[in-house]
């Protein structure tokens, strides 16, 4: 019992954090900085416990912790830590405590931890459902219309998921563990209904990631939310869902490799095309970045469709570096404030270069990283994925990706053009020093990671490849 409690310490510390926040709220604390500080402390405790008990799980039937899960969880916590600092600045500006947001983030982290560690369909479905519900509540903070549509879509998806699970559970004689199901699928890989059920488990992840044609709510959930929430959806959630998808693909659905390859390639191409064109069609920065994400996720999915260790790690590296860059871009948003209002339209960048050189630098470095210029993070990602495509002689796909990359690049360069060439429209408020510091750290990471300091890429690879053991 004690062991189990110890192994649950990462989650327990998050729960304790929630309690602490509630107590503070009951004690009528009004400073968002206090809440954020408390939250960060508990986050640090959770991280510590996570590292100590990285390979321990409360139930080996439902969960399995190893270096692979540790990798994703640590990244999750680190990005969340930064998110909390930035969001406190936002809430301070809006004169809100942000306690609801903090509690929901913590709950989301708990659910995410379990989702990442799941090796059982039941735990997967439960943690996914909880996560979706938390996301609903988060969206509800910003816009009820969006949250309603979100709930509608994911209700359908959950319904599909439950139906698929039921069919699999009955057909497989109550098998729920990934490895067992994987064996089962390999013996019955010509069974259409089983195949559809397996897809039914994949679809929710694809919806959550916004892969075309399952992108219905992706744009709205980011574009119409308040800044901390859209930051969370843009940076934190993809890490969770991609880790789950990788696990699904490598462990559960490996038997359907031959069937899935082609389908994944098709939806990847659709995402790449849609993402690139969509980014060019939009003038709101959140929407531009969302469509950019769809493009990049299409590339990641294409890499995963090769069903190969090397390409899968390349996909992970691409994801990590992309998320790091996107994080840098989002940190710029926290500096884009005019008369107390946070700005998100592309036109609001007009004259930024003349009045806010530091912010412009952060924006530029992030965009250059997205464009794949060395020595930024994006270059390493570009190098890695092109290497994989050429090794596997996927020349046609590579050509499509690169052509649409140029189209996507146009939208990023338009942002640069607006920041430098357009005349100033708004006068910006004074930049927050903490936000600037975090932005600077983020930018330093974007610059330094491509140098592979301390052999970090190799270490990440070692941790990642545990999934194949």
């Amino acid at each position, binding site marked *: 019992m004690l062991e189990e409690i110890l192994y649950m310490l990462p989650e327990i510390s998050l729960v304790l954090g929630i309690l602490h926040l509630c107590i503070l709220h009951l004690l009528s604390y009004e400073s968002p900085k206090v809440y954020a500080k408390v939250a960060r402390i508990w986050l640090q405790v959770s991280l510590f416990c996570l590292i100590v008990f990285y390979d321990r799980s409360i139930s080996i039937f439902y969960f399995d912790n190893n270096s692979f899960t540790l990798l994703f969880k640590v990244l999750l916590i680190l990005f969340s830590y930064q998110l909390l600092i930035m969001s406190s600045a936002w809430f301070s500006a809006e004169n809100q405590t942000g306690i609801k947001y903090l509690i929901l983030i913590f709950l989301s982290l708990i659910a995410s931890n379990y989702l990442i560690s799941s090796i059982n369909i039941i735990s997967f479905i439960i943690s996914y459902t909880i996560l979706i519900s938390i996301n609903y509540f988060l969206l509800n903070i910003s816009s009820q219309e969006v949250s309603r549509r979100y709930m509608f879509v994911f209700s359908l998806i959950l319904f599909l998921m439950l139906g698929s699970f039921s069919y699999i559970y009955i057909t497989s004689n109550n098998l729920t563990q990934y490895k067992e199901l994987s064996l089962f699928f390999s013996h019955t890989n010509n069974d*259409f209904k089983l195949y559809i059920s397996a897809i039914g488990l994949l679809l929710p992840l694809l919806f959550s990631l916004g892969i075309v044609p399952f992108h219905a709510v992706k744009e709205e959930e980011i574009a119409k939310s308040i800044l901390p929430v859209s930051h969370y959806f843009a940076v934190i959630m993809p890490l969770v869902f991609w880790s789950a998808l990788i696990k699904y693909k490598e462990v559960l659905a490996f038997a359907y490799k031959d069937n899935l390859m082609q389908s994944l390639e098709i939806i990847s191409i659709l995402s790449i095309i849609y993402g690139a064109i969509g980014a060019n*069609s939009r003038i709101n920065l959140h929407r531009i970045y969302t469509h950019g994400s769809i493009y990049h996720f299409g590339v990641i999915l294409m890499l995963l469709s090769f069903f190969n260790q090397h390409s899968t790690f390349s996909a992970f590296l691409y994801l990590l570096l992309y998320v790091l860059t996107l994080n840098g871009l989002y940190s710029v948003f926290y500096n884009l404030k005019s008369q107390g209002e946070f700005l998100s339209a592309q036109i609001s960048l007009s004259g930024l270069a003349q009045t806010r050189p530091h912010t412009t630098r952060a924006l530029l470095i992030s965009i250059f990283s997205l464009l794949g210029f060395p020595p930024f993070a994006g270059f390493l990602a570009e190098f890695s994925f092109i290497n994989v495509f050429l090794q596997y002689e996927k020349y046609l796909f590579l050509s499509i990706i690169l052509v649409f990359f140029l189209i996507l690049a146009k939208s990023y360069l338009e942002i640069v053009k607006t920041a430098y060439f357009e005349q100033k429209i708004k006068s910006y408020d004074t930049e927050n020093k903490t936000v600037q510091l975090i932005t600077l750290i983020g930018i330093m990471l974007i610059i330094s990671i491509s140098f592979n300091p301390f052999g970090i890429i190799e270490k990440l690879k070692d941790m990642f490849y545990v999934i194949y053991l």
Partner: protein
Amino acid sequence: MVINTLLCLTFVSIAGFINRGVRWDKIIAWIMFFISIFLLYNYIEQIINGVKQGFSFVWNESKSGVLTIDFFPSPTSNQFLVPLFGISILAIFNNNIFRYEERKAVFNSLILINFVSLSLLICAQNYVQLITAIFVSDIVGYVLLKDVDSSRHYVIYNFFADTCLFMVLSMVSGIINSLDISKLFTYEQIGRHKDFVGLVTSVALFIKIGVFSFHGYLLELSRARFQRMSTVSVLFSPLSGILLLVKLHNLLTVSDLFLPLYKVLSIFTFFTGTVFFVLKNNIRQKMVYFNMAFLGIILILLGENDFSWGVLLSSLYIILYLYNVMFFKLYLYQNRQDNVSDMINAKEINTDIMFVILLLLAILTNLFVSIMYNVSSSLGGMLSFYLSIILSLSLAIVLNHIYTSPKARRLDYLNKNSNRVWSFIFNALIIVLASYHFKAYNVANFIFLSIFFIIVWIPYIGATRRFYNNKFLQESSIANQIYYYILAVPLMYISRMLWLMVDTVFSEKIVENITARFNKIGISIFFKFNRKNYIHIILSIILGILIFVIPFLKRVMS
């Protein structure tokens, strides 16, 4: 002690650029003159004593051989060097005497630098030294002119000529794989594109010499100060052209087209020069045409003499310079009057000087004709002699226009300058000594002089003055207009068309419209697919499922 003349001259010319004020400028200018005299004397002494002076240093190495800068004067090259040195000293002397330049020392330095570079040209044994010397001479000429209007076309024409030379020599050196000028004769055997080489080289040389139809830029020189104009006309571009002609004739004669063209152009050059020398009103332009006619004769002589130079040709060149000096004096003592039609028949002042000038011109012309007779006899053809007679008679006609001018009024006094008389003495000395040396004092010479004076004084010749009133003749320059309408205007037109039609219309407008159109199409397709209603969401789910289903079914069925 063997003093290296070129090196000394180089140092002297550098010293001339030191700016220490007007008084020091005069002193330095005279010092430069006397040093030059001494160096000339020393050089001649060394030649007589058979002392060899020269230098060579390795500059660079290439696959074509070792590149050196050489100065080893031979008896042949001394036939150029000594007269050229003499003319340069004369030019320095005249500059010092006549107070025309604000900074005399600089003018003198430029003349000396030009002499040094032409010496290197004369003694060049490789192409690089040759071209370097040519470029330096052109640049010094441009610096000497100072005047923008006059030097503009001078620079561009010479730039074109130098580019042609550069092109041809680089091509030749690549083909015969050597930078050595002495190996030029091998081009005839192994060379390719002989007509191209011959014609391009000849165009370059014709421009530099200023032959008929290529002489437009020399006319522009008439806008500069007289002294500068005459110095450049004699010592710079045309002279370097002639020197190149002598050095590179092997390259010219590889093409069969060259010699006929050369002969025709030489004749045309002479006649154009002679005719316009008489018809033009402006004395500076007259001088340019006179030089042109004179050079035409020299070109004919060179053609008859297989392009080899000699003492007589050097003498002719000195005479050409002396003619320029005399014209300058005429101009000066006519109170710097440009138009011959406005020149006055001075009866009250400067009369003596004007007559002295006339006398000197007559003796000079007599000397010229005598030398021409000697040269023509030795070559066996009298064409050039007859042409020299024609030129002399046209000179007489022009002098008639000046000395029998209907205008008469008192000339103003020039500024006092007691040194001017030395110029006359010096020039007279040269002419008389030369006349004595070439035995230009026999009966035939006396008859010639008589005819010359008669033509100068006869009043009926003055009827040709009416051409001075013809505006078209006086103001137009057909050579310049030919080039303007054949070359400059079409090039500018093509340039503007390319700029507007290709760059602005095609690259900017059309390409931008096409990209904007594609962008619009993409955006409209995107918005069609990006509907947010619930039916659309359900349809997208169905589509997604189908994407997974169809490949599975295909695989199972296959």
